[in-house]
């Protein structure tokens, strides 16, 4: 017994165990790669090779009847990522500063104003860029902003966004650090499908494309939330903000508007 080679097909034990293991592997592969895909009623398999590819996870596109339903309104065409415009260069900021002179009448020479238009100083570049794009594309409409954006090139929008993100945030004249945070900012309203405002807008975490809200005019925040809720504003990608605003009560809208206005 001891002089017999262990790993040799002349050893009947070795031969049998390798044979049986191999047979199980082959049978399992046949079942998983061919038989199971073939018996799936919804999976229209055209042949053995198709079944194997499908089961092995080769991506394929299933032909669909009928095209996608096209929107009867403009939607945002900006591709938003969290890495977007996070490294502005100095030339861009400089060009933006020059371009921003025509924005100053509403948005303030330093990107801050009391005109109830958005304060742009210190706003994320991706946010300013997206909104300018949406105004230009018609996905967001405003009597004052739309004509301004209509004549902007992509470079202009990038530069303006870079410049405003470079400016330091200036606390609004309504600053009140002691204002207690409303429940909806901290915990949301899970029973009504509302995540905390802070989960996206920077208090707790940041979601790409969500603006910094600290120091924004309460009038402006309120108007936007109402526009999202009513569907008057639809440039939020895939309804991400409309889904939230629709569920908010009028009191909650008032509370968050006043809270964010008082934040730095």
């Amino acid at each position: 017994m001891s002089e017999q080679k262990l790993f040799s097909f002349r050893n009947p034990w070795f031969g049998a165990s390798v044979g049986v293991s191999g047979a199980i592997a082959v049978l399992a592969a046949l079942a998983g790669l061919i038989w199971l895909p073939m018996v799936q009623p919804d999976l229209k398999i055209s042949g053995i090779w198709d079944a194997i590819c499908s089961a092995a996870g080769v991506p394929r596109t299933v032909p669909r009847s009928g095209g996608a339903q096209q929107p009867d309104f403009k939607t945002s065409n900006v591709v938003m990522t969290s890495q977007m415009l996070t490294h502005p260069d100095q030339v861009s900021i400089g060009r933006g500063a020059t371009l921003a002179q025509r924005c100053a009448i509403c948005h303030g020479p330093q990107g801050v104003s009391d005109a109830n238009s958005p304060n742009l100083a210190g706003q994320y570049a991706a946010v300013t860029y997206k909104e300018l794009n949406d105004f230009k594309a018609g996905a967001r409409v405003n009597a004052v902003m739309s004509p301004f954006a209509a004549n902007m090139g992509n470079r202009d929008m990038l530069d303006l966004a870079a410049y405003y993100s470079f400016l330091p945030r200036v606390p609004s004249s309504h600053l009140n650090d002691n204002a207690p945070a409303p429940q909806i900012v901290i915990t949301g309203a899970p029973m009504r499908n509302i995540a905390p405002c802070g989960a996206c807008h920077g208090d707790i975490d940041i979601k790409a494309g969500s603006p910094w809200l600290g120091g924004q005019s309460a009038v402006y925040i309120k108007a936007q939330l109402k526009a999202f809720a009513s569907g008057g504003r639809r440039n939020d990608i895939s309804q991400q903000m409309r889904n939230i605003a629709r569920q908010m009560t009028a009191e909650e809208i008032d509370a968050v508007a006043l809270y964010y206005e008082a934040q730095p």
Partner: protein
Amino acid sequence: MTTESDPHLGEAVAARIERRWATLSIAIVGVLVGMAIFIGIDHATMPQGHVETADPKTLHLAGEFIESNLGSAMEADGSVTVRAIGQQYSFTPQCIVVPSGTPVTLRATSADVVHGLLIEGTNINTMLVPGYVSELPVQFKAPGEHAMPCQEFCGIGHQGMWGKVKVVDKATFLGMMASQRRLSCVD
């Protein structure tokens, strides 16, 4: 004192035990493979038979997951296709309406991170993985309302992420569908 024992006897006992253990282990493997085959055919689990991809960054630009194409759609063969996306922190459409007793194909994907789609009171449960389309063939037995929470931790606002599924009888559904090409019950 020496004990007289047949060396071949010992060898035979060892071989017999060896064979029994080997048979047992093979039987266990066989049962497991058989179980996987059975639940695959019986649809006790519903593994997706094919892989489809979708770029999470550009879902809103073109293709079947653009905003206006989400919701329930009537197919030529009388079945219903429901398209939805999960994103931080909501499902779109927020309220899905489907007919009872009708084959429904649920197609969903994620626009950002991994989400989960679970319809309470049913065995519908799948992950929404960014980059991939999850497709489930489903059928709702009776009219009613189900919660559809996200079942995969997707970030700090996860607990606020859920949608609703409203199952209505077929006649009502067809009536609702008559005026629209895509249907949802978002108010």
